[in-house]
């Protein structure tokens, strides 16, 4: 049977080959042949036409003018979304790579000071996540650069015109970053501690320098300076030192630490949930706690850095500021309110769950419900919009686009008050956690407690009073009220902490802290916080960039591409979500790689 099939196949192939050959010969035989001519060299009409056509093409090629491309198209999703996603992924990894060394160095420094090797191990474990993340940051950075050069050549040409003197320092710093990062990581335990700490310091300084140069480029796009009316560069330094450069530097530095801490805590949670022994669980519980502590500590002053940035945007252009807070992007801040509310809820919940680790912590359990009420109320105020979508009849019934009562909660006076109280409440949660399991022994403990309550209460009163006052004063006075509100909360946090540190210096222990003794839900809370932080970074990155609307460089270079419009918030949030999911897939890969070093090496049996 097999033999017959083989024979039949050969016959079929032979027939097919013969048929193809015959068809080709037939077609070639039908090609136009010029008639037989006498000795004249005159070409046939078809040949002449072909020659003329080739000559015309050659002439057109020679005379083709050079035209600089303004835009090129990226298939399917378009250039804007493609650049958006790659830029966001680059920024997320860059934020992580810049943030981890900051708190790794601090933890290593604490370990060096108190001689506790656990801190050194913890810092080393944090930096384990760095090397792969650094490679991914560089890869996405190169990818972003190629995308911009290919898709937005004219715009990149202009940025090069303004910022070319900053490129060489950037590259040099990048080399220095690689040197410090790999020496810091691979040199762990190989150098004297002070040398190693100095390497870490160098890594942080260089990393911050890189960030500040890149920040100059992007802030120039929003608040350009140092150029003539036609856009010609007058001073590169002024272009760098534009209105929003320093606010963005500060805001990003703090936000990076918050984000990096949350992702590192998520790594610890991932390891905790997969831990096989109590010792592992204890270590990763502690690591998660420290990561989250870092994230929340950085998160608390972040709104203040945000005020500074917003005030500089207003100072540069009132129209730009109003566009941000009251125009096309105003509803984005309602989404942000949901995110921040969730962050505060999650952070507080984690602290409350963490009390389970500590013996005799239940004496503070009774306070939690009041803290929860405060957090929920502030969340509700912040998430209340000024104007709401309503039918014509509903609008008439309300007497306008704003609700007659709830509308008052939609303005900045209410929102500033809510966020300040939220920060204060979260701080109180942390304070209770810090005190659980200990009792002060100093003689002035009662006075200290009273002082702490008085300072916190006074700060809350000032915040609420100024918030209410904001409804009755002129705009220029109202804007200024946020400063004393913020100042009173910061003062309260610093003063209460100082008292607490002194008061609990030789505190009596009521029980031990059992690291690892915490409900597993707490670890999912850490992951939830990391996803929320990441999502918020994506959203706020969008508003910062999208604020320029139909301008590549605000007021200087207009966007004339097909994407020169501001998309709906629904679309923007879908892009943000896609980016966040891509980031977590990649960071999951980083976690997995970092975990490989814990696994025992395979034993190769010798070949027989």
């Amino acid at each position, binding site marked *: 049977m097999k033999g017959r099939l083989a024979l039949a196949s050969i016959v079929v192939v032979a027939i097919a080959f013969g048929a193809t050959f015959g068809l080709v010969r037939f077609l070639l035989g039908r090609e136009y042949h010029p008639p037989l001519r006498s000795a004249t060299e005159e070409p046939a009409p078809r040949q002449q036409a072909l020659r003329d056509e080739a000559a015309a093409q050659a002439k057109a090629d020679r005379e083709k003018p050079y035209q600089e491309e303004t835009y090129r198209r990226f298939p399917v999703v378009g250039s804007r979304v493609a650049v958006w996603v790659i830029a966001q992924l680059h920024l997320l990894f860059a934020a992580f790579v810049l943030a981890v060394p900051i708190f790794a160095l601090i933890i290593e420094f604490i370990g060096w000071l108190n001689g506790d090797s656990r801190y050194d191990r913890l810092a080393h474990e944090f930096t384990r996540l760095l090397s792969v993340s650094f490679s991914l940051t560089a890869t996405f950075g190169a990818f972003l650069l190629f995308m911009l050069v290919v898709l937005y050549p004219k715009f990149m040409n202009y940025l090069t015109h303004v910022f070319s003197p900053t490129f060489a320092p950037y590259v040099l710093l990048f080399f220095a970053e690689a040197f410090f990062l790999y020496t810091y990581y691979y040199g762990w335990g190989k150098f004297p501690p002070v040398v190693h700490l100095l390497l870490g310091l160098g890594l942080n300084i260089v990393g911050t320098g890189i960030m500040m140069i890149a920040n100059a480029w992007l802030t120039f796009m929003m608040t350009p300076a140092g150029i003539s*009316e036609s856009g010609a560069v007058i001073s590169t330094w002024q272009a760098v030192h534009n209105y929003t450069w320093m606010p963005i530097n500060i805001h990003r530095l703090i936000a990076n630490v918050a984000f990096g801490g949350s992702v590192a805590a998520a790594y610890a949670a*991932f390891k905790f*949930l*997969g831990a096989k022994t109590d010792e592992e669980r204890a270590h990763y519980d502690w690591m998660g706690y420290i990561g989250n502590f870092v994230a929340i500590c950085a998160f608390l002053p972040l709104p203040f850095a945000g005020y500074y940035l917003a005030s500089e945007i*207003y100072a540069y*252009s*009132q*129209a730009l500021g*109003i*566009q941000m807070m*009251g*125009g*096309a992007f105003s*509803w*984005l801040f*309602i*989404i942000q309110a*949901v*995110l921040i509310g969730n962050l505060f809820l999650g952070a507080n919940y984690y602290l409350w769950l963490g009390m389970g680790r500590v013996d005799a912590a239940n004496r503070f359990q009774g306070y939690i419900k009041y803290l929860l009420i405060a957090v929920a109320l502030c969340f509700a105020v912040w998430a209340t919009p000024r104007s709401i*979508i309503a039918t014509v009849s509903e609008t008439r019934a309300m007497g306008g686009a704003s609700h007659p009562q709830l509308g008052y909660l939609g303005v900045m006076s209410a929102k500033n008050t809510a966020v300040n109280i939220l920060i204060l409440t979260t701080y109180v949660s942390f304070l209770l956690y810090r005190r659980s399991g200990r009792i002060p022994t100093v003689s002035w403990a009662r006075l200290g407690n009273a002082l702490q309550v008085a300072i916190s209460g006074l700060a809350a009163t000032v915040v609420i009073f100024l918030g209410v006052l904001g*409804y*009755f*004063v*002129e*705009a*220029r006075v*109202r804007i200024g009220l946020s400063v004393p509100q913020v100042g009173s909360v910061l003062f309260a946090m610093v003063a209460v902490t100082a008292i607490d540190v002194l008061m609990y210096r030789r505190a009596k222990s009521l029980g031990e802290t059992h690291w690892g003794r915490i409900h597993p839900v707490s670890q*999912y809370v850490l*992951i*939830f916080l990391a*996803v*929320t932080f990441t*999502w918020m970074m994506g959203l706020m990155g969008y508003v910062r960039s999208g604020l320029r*609307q*139909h*301008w590549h460089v*605000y*007021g*200087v270079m207009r*966007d004339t591409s097909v994407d*020169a*419009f*501001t*998309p*709906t*918030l*629904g679309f*923007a*949030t*879908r892009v*943000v*979500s896609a980016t*966040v*999911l891509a980031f*977590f897939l990649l960071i999951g890969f980083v976690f997995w790689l970092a975990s490989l070093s814990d696994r025992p090496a395979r034993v190769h049996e010798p070949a027989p």
Partner: protein
Amino acid sequence: MRVPVTLKILALTVTTTAFYTIVGQLVPQKEVLPPKETALKKEMTQAEMVKAGKDIMEGKGICFTCHTLGKQGALRFPDLAGIGARAGQRVAGLSDVQYLAQSIYDPNAFIVPGFNPGMPVINKPPIGLTDDEIKAVVAYLQSLGGQVTVTMDSKLWPLDQAKAATAVPTKGPATP
């Protein structure tokens, strides 16, 4: 059946992201397009200029991002209702047209008491209205409680040339 931890983390990540995406769909969905150009002709009547000026203020001029019309209370920028009547009395020596032209070409020359400086120069980017567009805007502003005197032939800037378009100052309240 025991669900692997990795799967639980993945589910949590996807669910959290999906939740925020849904929140993003619940807020008002609005695309903001680049401002449209308003067609202006040299032979426009004052009524046509007023209509064009209104369109420009609502569109390319983005005037109502900051200013309001008929709103009272603690405002960030002056309300423009009745500005046509008030303009001629704002600054001594300046007619209504001169005052309105100065507010647009050199907005920091005079700040209405109680307000902060903050208005950008309107004939420069990012707004960048042309001289003709500004004439239409001035016509519209004059129409808010005053008498329209500006025409497409008027010269508004520099200020001394704006006298040609000046009418007798109209009476009205002196407050913003």
